[in-house]
Structures are given as C-alpha cells and as structure tokens.
C-alpha cells in the first residue's frame, strides 16, 4: 500500500482531468439519471417529509415528480460545479450524493402503495442508533491503528463486550457494572492481540482474524453452556435507561436522535470528542501518532514504543468493548450467539472511510447508519428496490474508498509493522 500511496503523491496530476473533475463528471451523470429517470418514473402524488418521529405532525409536501426532478437538478448543479472548478470536493460530492438520494426517495415515496410519508425524526434517530456500535468500533480501530497495530479484531472485541456486559450486568444486577465488565472484556481480547502482535511479532491481520473466530466460538460456547440453560440468572440484564434532555429532545428532526438517547449515544459523541482532543492536542496523542508513523524515530527521542502500543491497544479494546455492550444492553435484552453479525467489519470500513481520524470515523459511521435507516424505511413502504442491494452500499462505498475512486485513503505508515528495537 505504501508504494502506491507514494506513487499517487509523486505523480502530481497536471492534466485537466484531475480526480475531482472526474468525480464531478460522475456526479453530473448521476444527477442527470435522477432528473430524467426518477423524474419520469415518479408520479404527481405528494411525498411528505414529516419532521417528527411519527407520520403525523408538521412536514413539507413535494409532488413526487417535481421533487425527483428538483433534487436531480441540484445533483447536476453540484456535479457541474465540481467538474468546472475542481474544488470543494467533499462539500460538492456530499451535496450531489444527498440530492441524488432525496430524488430517489421522492420517486419511491410517490409510487409506494403503502405510505407517502417519511418521518425524518425517526429516520435520524434510527441512523444514530444504528451508528453507535460502528462509532465505538471504529474509535477502537483508530486508537489501535494510529499507534501502529492493525485491529481487524473489532468484531471480536464488540462481541466480547456484548457478552461480558450481559453476563456481569445480570449477575451484579447493575448495568453500570455490566458496562465496566464489557470494557474489561474488550480489553482482555485486545490484550491477546497486543501480546501476540507486539511480544510474539505474529502478523497482526492473522491474529485479528483468528481472534474474531476465537471470540465468536468462546462466547457462543458459554452462551450454550451457561446462559441458555439459566437465562434469568446469567442473561437477563437491566437495559440501559433513556435519558431525554428536557426541551432539547423536542427539537424537530434532530431532537429525538441527539437528545433522547442512552449512555451509549451520549457516550459515543463524548468518546469521539475526547479521542479527537487527546489524539491531536496532548502529549500522549503526539507520541501515539509518532509511534504509528515512525517508531524508530519515536524510540530515538525516548518514547517507549512497545509500552505505548500495549497501552493503546488495551484502551482500544476497552472502547470497542463498551460499544459492544450496546448490543446486549440497549439493542436487545441479553446476549445471543454471534449477535454482532458483521458490525465490527463495518466499523473497520468506517475507520478506513474516515481516514483513520476520529471525526471522520464518526461521519462514516453515521453514513453507514443512514443506509441502514434508509433500508428499513424503504422496506417499510414496500419499495421494489431489493433491500440486499441497499445493504451492500456501505461495503461498495468502502471498496470505492480504498481503491481511490472517491479519494485515496492513507494508513499510518507503521500500521501493521511490528517494532523490534535494535
């Protein structure tokens, strides 16, 4: 990966067709597709976007065909702007994609036999809730990889967190202790990763993959042997309570998502803020990044490379483990076998999509969560678009990201390379 990154940086695009212009052309094409195809297919039935969490209440109505054409044209405009100027890449691509999606929604809602109303508040809330495990998982990935240890074991860390959270949450009768146990569980699995990767120099991707299998098997084994025979005693945890913020939770659209959450939703935002600040504003953060980019140089100036790596991998495990408890303490009551079912890998994708940056990881997680919410909404209005293809979108987006079609991503230079002093 390193060589190709170098190549891309060395080869300064001198011609007219830079990456931004090419993407702009693609966006223009998408916009035209939306304008013409969606506009023609949509009916004049009004598509209603309600602000609240239900289909009643205030909202705005747009005739389906008008909306599809209007937002298609917005996408065209953003694409053309990018094509002509070649600047403001993120903003224009974001606008074009969002307009494309809204155009598609107008079309789908106007032809739906079930409902023409989209409750925006509910979609926002589902988006954020679905993103919670991705946020914690990708933060675990960021912490680990910024320090130079590849973390493919996010799935396993989430699963261990879910298991420990449920088990100890039930045994102790307190979700607080369950949360602590989830962090310990994630850190324990991370400790195995750390020892094998740092002490025994085993390839980190290999350890991560094997640890996912290990965590899956171990939690499933104890689920079958211990939890299932006696659910009340071992797998019936107290669910985390919802803490609405008075007043703010009544805000249309975003209120229910942001201010009517649990410790997980508030915690995820706090965690992103804390990781961002510490990673880029503190001595620990600077050292972490130095160790991840050039461990030999860091060692030369007296930073304990291996010690810092151990510490950060353990913290990453604890963060991911905390997020894993979401599955057993908020999403449902109690643990079930393999309940994480791929969220850890989406978190990995979110980390890459977010360019190994905590805020980027948050946005990517929300993006992936939004597709989840959109899928369930479209299934709800019995859309003819197969849900499987909608569910594929996060993975396809990640492939686009890593192949550089949407903007090349770069891993920390020493990511995955064990450091041997000497």
């Amino acid at each position, binding site marked *: 990966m390193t060589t190709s990154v170098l190549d891309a940086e060395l080869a300064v695009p001198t011609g007219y067709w830079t990456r931004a212009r090419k993407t702009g052309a693609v966006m223009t094409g998408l916009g035209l597709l939306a304008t013409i195809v969606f506009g023609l297919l949509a009916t004049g039935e009004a598509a209603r976007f309600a602000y609240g969490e239900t289909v009643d209440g205030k909202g705005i109505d747009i005739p389906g065909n008008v909306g599809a054409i209007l937002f298609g044209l917005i996408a065209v405009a953003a694409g053309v702007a990018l094509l002509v100027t070649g600047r403001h890449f993120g903003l224009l691509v974001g606008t074009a994609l969002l307009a494309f999606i809204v155009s598609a929604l107008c079309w789908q809602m106007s032809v739906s036999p079930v409902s023409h109303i989209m409750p925006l508040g509910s979609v926002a809330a589902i988006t954020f809730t679905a993103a919670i495990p991705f946020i914690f998982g990708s933060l675990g990935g960021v912490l680990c990889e910024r320090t130079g240890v590849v973390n493919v074991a996010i799935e396993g860390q989430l699963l261990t967190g879910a298991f420990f959270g449920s088990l100890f949450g039930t045994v102790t009768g307190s979700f607080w202790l369950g949360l602590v146990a989830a962090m310990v569980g994630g850190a324990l699995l991370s400790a195995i990763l750390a020892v094998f990767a740092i002490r025994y120099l085993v390839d980190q*991707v*290999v350890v991560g993959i094997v640890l996912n299998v290990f965590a899956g*098997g171990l939690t499933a084994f104890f689920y079958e042997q211990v939890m299932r025979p006696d659910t009340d005693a071992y797998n019936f945890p107290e669910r985390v309570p919802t803490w609405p913020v008075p007043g703010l939770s009544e805000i249309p659209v975003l209120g229910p998502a942001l201010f009517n959450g649990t410790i997980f939703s508030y915690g995820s935002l706090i965690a992103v803020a804390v990781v961002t600040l510490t990673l880029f504003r503190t001595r620990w953060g600077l050292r972490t990044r130095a160790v991840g980019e050039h461990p030999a140089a860091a060692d030369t100036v007296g930073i304990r490379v291996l010690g810092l790596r151990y510490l950060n991998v353990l913290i990453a495990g604890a963060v991911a483990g905390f997020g894993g408890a979401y599955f057993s303490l908020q999403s449902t009551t109690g643990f079930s076998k393999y309940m994480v079912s791929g969220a850890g890998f989406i978190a990995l994708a979110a980390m890459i999509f977010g360019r190994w940056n905590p805020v980027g990881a948050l946005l990517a997680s929300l993006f992936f969560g939004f597709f989840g919410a959109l899928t369930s909404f479209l299934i709800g209005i019995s859309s003819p678009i197969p849900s499987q293809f909608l569910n594929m979108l996060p993975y396809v987006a990640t*492939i686009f990201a890593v192949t550089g079609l949407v903007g090349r991503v770069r891993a920390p230079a020493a990511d995955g390379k064990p450091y041997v002093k000497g």
Partner: protein
Amino acid sequence: MTSHEPIESAGPVGAEPQATASSPDKSPSVEKPPFDQYAVRAGEPAVGHRRAPEPARRSFGQVLREELWADNNVTVTILAIVLALFCGGILMIIGNAELREQWSYFFYQPGKTLAESWDFVSTAYGDMFKGSVVNPDTANRWYWDMAPWQQVFYPITETLTYAAPLIFTGLAVAVPFRAGLFNIGGQGQAIMGAIGGGTVGLALSTTPWLQVPLGLIAGALLGGLYGYLVGILKARTGAHEVILTIMLNYIAALFLGWYILQEGIKDPNRPDAISKPIAASGYLPKLIPDPLLRANLGIILAVLAAAGVAWLLKRSRFGFELRAVGHNPSAAATAGIGVGTTLALTMALAGALAGLGGTSVALGTAPALTGDMLGQIGFNGILVALLGRVRPWGVVGAGLLFGALQAGGNTMQNFSGVSQELVVVIQALIVLFVAAPALVKTIYRLRRSPAAAAQAMVAKG
C-alpha cells in the same frame, strides 16, 4: 527434521562462523557445517544420514530425541494441538454446572474433583474421537455381525465430508499467501462458487456425467472471477486486499440472499428463503453408494487440487513467478515478471479454488441453496491454511484435522452435552499457538532448533 542440528551441540562448528557464513547452502534454514568438517563427515561411511554436523559420539537416536523436543514445525504443531485441547478441557469444566459446583469443594475433596473433571473431559474427547475416526463399539459389533460395515466407516467418512470444502478454501488462502497476499475473501468466493455450481445443479437435469463437471466449472469460474476482481483492483489501484476481500465477502453474502429469492431459483412451494432442490443428476457422486455415508467426490477433488497446487507452486513457471512476487515484488518486476498480472491470476486461481469449495458443499451435502448453506467455510479455510503453514500438503493435513474436529464436535454435543461451539474455540487456539511458536516454546521449555528461525514467522504476510 532429524538432519537439523540443535544449536547446543554445535561444538567445533560454532567455532568457525565465517566458514559457515560463506558456504553456499541448498536449504537456508539448516545450519551447515564448514567445508573441512563436511569433508570429514562425508568420508565416514558409518554415519547414517546426510550432513550430520555434530561430533561422532552422538548417535542418531540421540539427535532424533533432541530434535523431537526442539521447536521444529512438527513438534510445535503437535504441542499446539495438545495445548489447545487442554484449554478446551478447562473450558468444558467451566461450562459444566455440576463440575463448577464440585470445584467449589476443591480443597475439601480434591481427589474427587479432579477425578470427576478428568472423567468428564476424557469422555467428551473420547466421543469426539468416536465421531471422527472410528467408534470401537461399532467396530466390535460389526466383528460379531451385529452392525453393518457401513456404520464402522461412518465417522471417518463424516470427517472426509467436512474436510473437503475446508481443503479447498484452505488452498484458496495458502496460494495467495505465497504471493504475499492475504486472502480473507474465501467466504465470498466460495459463496459465488456455490451460486454458480448450485444454479447448474438445480436448473439442469441431464446425466451426472455432464452436469457434475458443468457445475464444477461454473463454480470455479464464478469464484475465480470474484477472486480476479480483487487481484485486478489490487494490481491497478494498490488497494489493500484484506479490506477488499472483507467487503466483498459481505457483498457476496447479500447477493446470495437476494439471488435465492428470484423467480426461477426460489422454491415456489416453500415460504422461507430457499432455492429449488438440487437435481439428483447434479450431485457429486458418493465415494461409497450408501445413504448413510455422505463422503463424496469432493474430497478426492480436494486432494487432487492440493496436488495440482503443489506442482504448480514448485514446478511451473507461473508458480515460480508467484513465489518471486511474494518474496520481493520489486525484484520480481526488475527481473521482468509482470507483478500485476501475477497478482491478478493468483487471486483468480484462489477464487476458483474457493469456488470449488463452495460448489462441493452446494452439490455435495446441501439439499438446496440457502443463505447460510456454507457456514463459515471461508473463514475456517484461513485457519486451515495457517495451520498447514500455507503449504498444499500441510493444508490437506490441517483440513483433515479440522474436518475431524467438526465431525467429532457433533458427536460430542450429542453424547456428552458439550456444545460444539467448543470446536471453534479449539481450532482458533491451535492456530494462535502455531502462529506464535515462541509462546509454545516458552510454555513447554523447548530446545531451540536451528530450523525454527525460518519457521518462526509462519504468519509473516
């Protein structure tokens, strides 16, 4: 292994390091004696094996004994399995409510506690053996004409049935590994293969002589194309294959979920998501035509594939280029090897192998296409390849072991009440321990083998 020289016995050899360093060596992992020493040795007819570097007073048996307890491949692998089984035993005890109770009285009745634990664990592992190799009771009853001979073969054929797809997916990981690629995408490639093979299996209804090869070709082709996609993306854009293959796994799984619901594929008589049944002429022929014994042509094909891969890697031009790219892509490019083409073809080959693995399930044991028909064969293939040290015949051995563990796990769950999820844990532990020979060495206080240096980094990607 016996020709490897333990470092402690170096004696006069170690005294002349410059001679060792300058001597050209055919196998770099073996420390070679200096020339003069070697000449003396070669002149002695009494020495039984080639290149015995230690002083003459050590017998062959002594060397063998020492090497047996040194950290060579075979010893480490066997000890890793023992260690994993030991951990599995501990987990069984923790997972059993009565034994947990008994352990709280450990200081009161230590003998009884240990005896009961031992009984439980040994019975469970005994059941595992009975379910995977041979059940002595059945053999005995067959001897006295109380059971048909098929029953005696039932456990071992189950092992072979489970092993076949694992060998295929294991090879699909092992081959790219030699080219420096870590293929996590065995699962997705196997799914695409199962779609290809399964579609031929359920859509046509001709003679098996035509339909089975067609199904295998379709499976290998679709899996190969899916692998080729990874290779070409890696070669063209430099994207990391681990990320690509993880994402493609999920895309393939979702695609399968969609595919089996389509008109013409879905079984119209069933409400759930399942395809039409595979035609009788589409199934891989069984090794022993008996309804009880499931082992089919798949295992033969898997072993043939391993032989083919072994030949390809060792003897063919493509295999040479593949290994050259794996060792040093820049050097390979300088030598005129098309690195990108090699990577793409390697991934296509890997995809075809994994596709055959998926097809061997779709046309071997699965009655129809379903969303979870393949289980985790792609991911288990990663473990199989790592345990087999990414060598074709090692993969066959590891695949047989994993197949045996899976077949035995079923029996263990049915008779001892130990959940077969334990098998997954044991498999993961074996691979973890094998991947870190230094850990096994520390635990067992193994002597250092000079061969170990080359093997220490089995998992070096």
